[in-house]
């Protein structure tokens, strides 16, 4: 579904990603862990071209998206993204937040979009907030709306960039529950997170990224219990 070949990313002189090769298959839940500054968020943001790639190729459904001529907007419609800071549109109601993209991009008419939005709000448990504005919601509620908003475009893959890092501790659970349910429904997901318990429980594969390369990857069991790499063990020793 997503193939990454020899991905390099520079910020000025600084080389943040130093050659990443990955193949993310349909239905996989890939959790990316690693110390801050390791390049894991940059890796995720390269996948839907929020960062332009310095060198290397990314294929989505066998289409080379790092090609200059690729239709970036079309490709992004296939990839939902959830941000650390939620990034809901504060001037729109929850309903409008969710229906904006599907109606604007002519995926559905207003009626269909509204119906779909209500389904999604039910799914994340916020049907009663449809007419509220984002400022009236708690952090956890905002993030659940953000997930619903991304799902409204019926993406083939969902990217999560530290979705619970900006939340108060008591709200982390409600967001993780939604994500867990999403994983169980068969959605392909790439998740950058510091929630190791969640990674262990939900991931089909864990990537440990440090210093701009994938140092080690494997099933949660392989990574969390039998890490081979010295760095992985050191990192896990600090966070677990």
């Amino acid at each position, binding site marked *: 579904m997503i193939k990454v070949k020899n991905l390099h990313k520079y910020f000025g002189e600084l080389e943040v990603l130093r050659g990443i090769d990955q193949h993310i298959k349909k239905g996989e839940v890939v959790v990316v862990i690693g110390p801050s500054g390791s390049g894991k968020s940059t890796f995720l943001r390269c996948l839907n071209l929020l960062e332009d790639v310095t060198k290397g190729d990314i294929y989505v459904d066998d289409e080379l998206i790092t090609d200059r001529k690729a239709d970036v907007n079309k490709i992004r419609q296939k990839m939902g993204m959830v941000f650390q800071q939620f*990034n809901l*549109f504060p001037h729109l109601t929850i309903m409008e937040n969710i229906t904006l993209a599907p109606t*604007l991009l002519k995926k559905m008419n207003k009626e269909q979009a509204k119906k779909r939005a209500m389904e999604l709000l039910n799914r994340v448990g916020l049907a009663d907030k449809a007419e509220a504005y984002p400022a009236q919601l708690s952090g956890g509620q905002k993030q659940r709306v953000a997930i619903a908003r991304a799902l409204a475009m019926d993406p083939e893959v969902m990217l999560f960039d530290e979705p619970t890092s900006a939340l108060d501790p008591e709200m982390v659970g409600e967001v993780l529950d939604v994500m867990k349910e999403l994983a169980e429904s068969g959605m392909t997901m790439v998740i950058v997170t510091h929630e190791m318990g969640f990674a262990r429980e939900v991931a089909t594969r864990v990537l440990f990224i440090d210093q701009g390369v994938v140092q080690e990857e494997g099933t949660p069991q392989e990574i969390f219990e039998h890490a081979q790499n010295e760095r992985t063990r050191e990192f896990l020793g600090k966070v677990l």
Partner: protein
Amino acid sequence: MNAWFAEVAATFTKCFIKDDRWQLLLSGIGVTIKVSLLAVIIGIIIGFLIALCNLSKKKPLKIIGGVYTDVIRGTPSVTQLMIIYFVIFATVNLDKWIIAAIAFGVNSGAYVSEIIRAGILSIDKGQTEAGRSLGLSASQTMVRIIAPQAIKNIFPALCNEFIVLIKETAIVGYVGLMDIQKAGDFIKSATYEAFMPLIGTAIIYYVLIKILTLLLSIVEKKLRKSDVR
């Protein structure tokens, strides 16, 4: 006291009633409003385009935006008005007031562009990223997500710019238009009275701007609708 009142009344009559001089001021108000309104519209359009140039990543556009703002801010508006009227539009057959409005619009555009640029930059980068990640194009993101939020932030500064612009139009007399200021000036010359026509002019401007300020504050309240907490 009575004598003083009688004198003021006499001067008032001489300046505003005699020879229907109030009509001069009335048509002057019309000219000021016409020129200001069109200039504001032109100013916003130019300002938005120049702001986009300044924010663009493309070098040539950046240069255009930079030079425009630099030149307009670096020269007096009277000079700009006269250059546009007597040089650029010298051979063009357009109504005087339209040419004047273009001149003020061109001038205002430079200031408006800086206001708009600051407004756009004040919106968190995450908003653009969220819009783009949903598959919206850059222009869709600008129109549907960034601009509506930026307008709220820049509205007070924009109102201020409109008010400055209205007062700035008091120089259109330089190109032979009879606005409020010129009408007051005309009455002053015709009657050899300075106090009454000039104070009258000041009061008219003040009232016009007061009305505008009140209207704009109503609009601002409407804009703040989604700020509920």
